[in-house]
């Protein structure tokens, strides 16, 4: 059996699936405990149900995008290992970058044809080791750090903590939106206006979608929409990305995109 066949074998599914099952069990335990603790401190169960519904509906679309990451890496690493990496601890942008860096170190290209058993086990070790520090820090410092934060949060009188968290998140969102604006204005060189407009258009469409669904959910009888507003707004943004690519196939991509658009139209017709 060649290396790729063994990387896609039942044994590999068993090893990786076993670890994923363990992590899923941990999630179930945390969810059940949080639910019970919420009830014990007098939280409204309808609020907790709202959180569950919203989190579940929101997570589907990013999870499908993560699945594409599994597919992208499966050509070189087989299906089970990327499945494990992206289900547990991994991040979409991290895995691809580290896998390529690791392949460079073992002196191969990250392709199925070049993969050897030793290269794979080395790449797998590196992918696990490079991103373990969040967990290591949690082991030693989570308790102390979160206890300090909780004490501050529970202090009587005005606290800056909640405002700081909102500000930090605004900073996070601004970094990404700023990168889409920068990507459009300075795509390949400063002020060349040849960048890809799709991320910004998609973000704007999602923002418009969020505005619409937020307004609708304020109407009588449509309150339920609030739980799904984020997922629906994301769908609106993603639909805008498809529409934009169909209407302006060459935007931001030059001639290559024009060629792609022909195929896109054909694909659309086939779907």
């Amino acid at each position: 059996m060649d290396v790729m066949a063994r990387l896609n074998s039942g044994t590999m599914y068993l090893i990786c699936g076993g670890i994923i099952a363990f992590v899923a069990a941990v999630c179930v335990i945390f969810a059940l405990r949080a639910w019970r603790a919420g009830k014990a401190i007098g939280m409204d169960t309808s609020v907790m149900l709202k959180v569950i519904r919203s989190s579940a509906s929101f997570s589907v679309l990013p999870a499908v995008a993560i699945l594409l990451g599994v597919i992208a890496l499966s050509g070189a690493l087989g299906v089970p290992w990327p499945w494990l990496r992206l289900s547990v601890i991994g991040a979409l942008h991290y895995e691809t970058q580290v896998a390529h860096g690791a392949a460079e170190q073992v002196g191969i290209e990250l392709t199925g044809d070049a993969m050897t058993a030793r290269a794979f086990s080395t790449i797998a070790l590196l992918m696990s080791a490079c991103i373990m520090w969040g967990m290591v820090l949690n082991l030693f410092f989570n308790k102390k750090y979160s206890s300090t934060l909780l004490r501050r949060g529970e202090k009587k009188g005005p606290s800056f903590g909640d405002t700081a968290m909102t500000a930090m998140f605004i900073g996070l969102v601004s970094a990404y939106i700023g990168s889409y604006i920068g990507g459009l204005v300075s795509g390949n060189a400063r002020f060349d206006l040849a960048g890809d407009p799709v991320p910004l258009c998609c973000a704007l469409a999602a923002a418009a979608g969020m505005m619409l669904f937020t307004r609708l959910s304020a109407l009588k009888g449509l309150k339920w929409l609030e739980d799904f507003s984020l997922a629906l707004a994301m769908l609106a943004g993603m639909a805008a990305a498809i529409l934009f690519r169909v209407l302006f196939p060459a935007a931001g991509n030059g001639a290559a995109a024009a060629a792609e658009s022909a195929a896109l139209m054909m694909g659309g017709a086939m779907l």
Partner: protein
Amino acid sequence: MSMKDPYESYTKKTHVIGRIATLVTLCLLLGAPFVIGAYLGAMPDLGAAARGFISVGLVWTVSSVVEFLVYLPMLGSGGGYLAMITGNLINMKIPCAVHSRDLAGVKAGTKENEIVSTLSIAVSSLVTVLVLAAGVLLLQPLLPVLESRVLRPAFDQVVPALFGAMAFRYYRGHLKLALWPLLLMSALFILVPSLRSQTSIMILPSGALAILLAWFGWKKERAAG
């Protein structure tokens, strides 16, 4: 007879379970390459792994420390354990926890936020595990749909869609606060196009500026009574 505070006992156990789960996951993830190596008949090349760690891993080590310090306050202790174990923080767990906090109307750093955050990250992680498991199971029939040229642009833009939607939600009530970080980030990404590959690092100056502005605003509000 002393009555034990149920929340205190919940928090204590959360740390015990969180630490055990983290330790076991760490052992499983670091052990798996060796188990797979034994199965394939070739153990990892530790020299190459060490060289690789120096060239790629150190950046991620710094990034992990920053992520821990910045994101744990948003995630809470239980959510923190889960999010670090299940990953995909920026593109999934953080927005999910923040959105849930908003929906539930709870404040950061409170007991209620701890519960909401843990619940939302656990559910989000389970949905991810289920979607990926279903996707892997149905990979062959799903492949043409997921990789179709029509749908591909949509899946490539999940993160812009997510941050666009979140931008409306958060900019709406804090326009003044959002303006400067957005202007600064846009200017930086326009003037230094190569920074786009470092967006996750740029969260730090952007977040720091937003927190600084929020701090001044908060002080001013307090002084005004």
